[in-house]
């Protein structure tokens, strides 16, 4: 009897877990849809921005803006901004980014900046200190969060040769890829510089500073929203398969439960019939 009860208890607990994973999947799918909408909107904006800075950087030979063009790499150090999530339960989303980051660190000694608690926890454990750390807001807030990150990156760039973003590029619900994107300088070493030069209205420096600021803002927004969509889509998939697994577990436990119950009944029947047979024989 106690075995039956144990199995019954087990089934109940798996059912409860399944309820939870199903709820989480539903929450993720709502979030995913919301983030995806924002991401699809941000995409063309970032594309136009990238086109503009690239064109400006390539057109002008004597460009003095270090963000757009750098010919001398004298700092001997690069900065990689790693974007992970704050929470787990999203399959290999965080570990994929971290794996890529550690592979990079093995190749060359980068300084890192981290967005997201998961990444921070990992690198703390590794004993690698990060230059700066932001919690992942979990929602795409354009205003303050992106602004803060942009400002920090702008300030820190002075002590680095290059700045990269390591984040998860969202392709579709089934495909995500971790990608390393160079943010600064836009043009490295000798650029084409063959095209006609750009005419500037008013002060060149001022225009370019504003351009760089806008470019960085849109790059951060793009990376963060791409990461957010990827995270939710990963969580959705992970929770879906967890719900599925629970379903399978429940059905196999049900089989065992029925078998054990039937065995107990059969045993009882045998006991009764053998008892009555004993009475007849008396």
């Amino acid at each position, binding site marked *: 009897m106690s075995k039956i009860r144990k199995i019954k208890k087990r089934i109940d607990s798996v059912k409860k877990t399944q309820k939870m994973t199903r709820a989480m999947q539903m929450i993720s799918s709502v979030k995913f849809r919301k983030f995806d909408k*924002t991401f699809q*909107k*941000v995409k*063309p*904006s970032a594309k*136009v*921005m990238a*086109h*503009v800075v690239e*064109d*400006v950087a390539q*057109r002008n030979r004597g460009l003095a803006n270090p963000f757009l063009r750098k010919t001398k790499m004298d700092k001997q150090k690069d900065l990689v901004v790693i974007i992970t999530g704050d929470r787990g339960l999203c399959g290999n989303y965080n570990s994929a980014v971290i794996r890529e980051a550690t592979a990079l660190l093995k190749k060359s000694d980068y300084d890192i900046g981290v967005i997201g608690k998961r990444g921070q926890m990992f690198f703390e454990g590794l004993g690698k200190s990060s230059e700066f750390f932001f919690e992942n807001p979990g929602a795409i807030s*354009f205003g303050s969060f992106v602004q803060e990150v942009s400002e920090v990156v702008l300030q820190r760039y002075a002590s680095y040769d290059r700045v990269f973003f390591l984040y998860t590029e969202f392709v579709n619900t089934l495909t995500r890829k971790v990608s390393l994107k160079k943010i600064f300088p836009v043009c490295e070493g000798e650029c084409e510089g063959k*095209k*006609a*030069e*750009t*005419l*500037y*209205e*008013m002060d060149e420096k*001022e*225009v370019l500073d*504003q*351009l760089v600021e*806008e470019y960085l*803002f*849109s790059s951060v*927004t793009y990376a963060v929203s791409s990461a957010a969509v990827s995270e939710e889509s990963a969580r959705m998939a992970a929770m879906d398969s967890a719900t599925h697994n629970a379903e399978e577990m429940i059905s196999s436990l049900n089989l065992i439960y029925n078998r054990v119950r039937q065995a107990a009944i059969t045993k009882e029947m045998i006991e009764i019939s053998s008892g009555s047979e004993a009475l007849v024989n008396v």
Partner: protein
Amino acid sequence: MSKKEEQFLDLKIVSREKKVWEGKASFLLVPALDGDVGLMFGHAPFLSPLRDGRIDVKTDEGTTSLSVKKGIVHVSSNVVSLLVEENID
């Protein structure tokens, strides 16, 4: 196709958050910082910040106007990119 029909500017207007307008324009008037600038097919590469004002876009269907608050205009090989900080319309 006559030559005149091909002479359009490829115009993309985007804000920080989204695409505002995209299409072909025959003439464009933007509020550059020191004064309005008219842009047509074949304009030299150009980069300028924008002040608060109106953008007039002349297309086949007529003229469209957009109010903008700050931004940057960039012209290169007949592709015009307008990054506007905020559009009130």
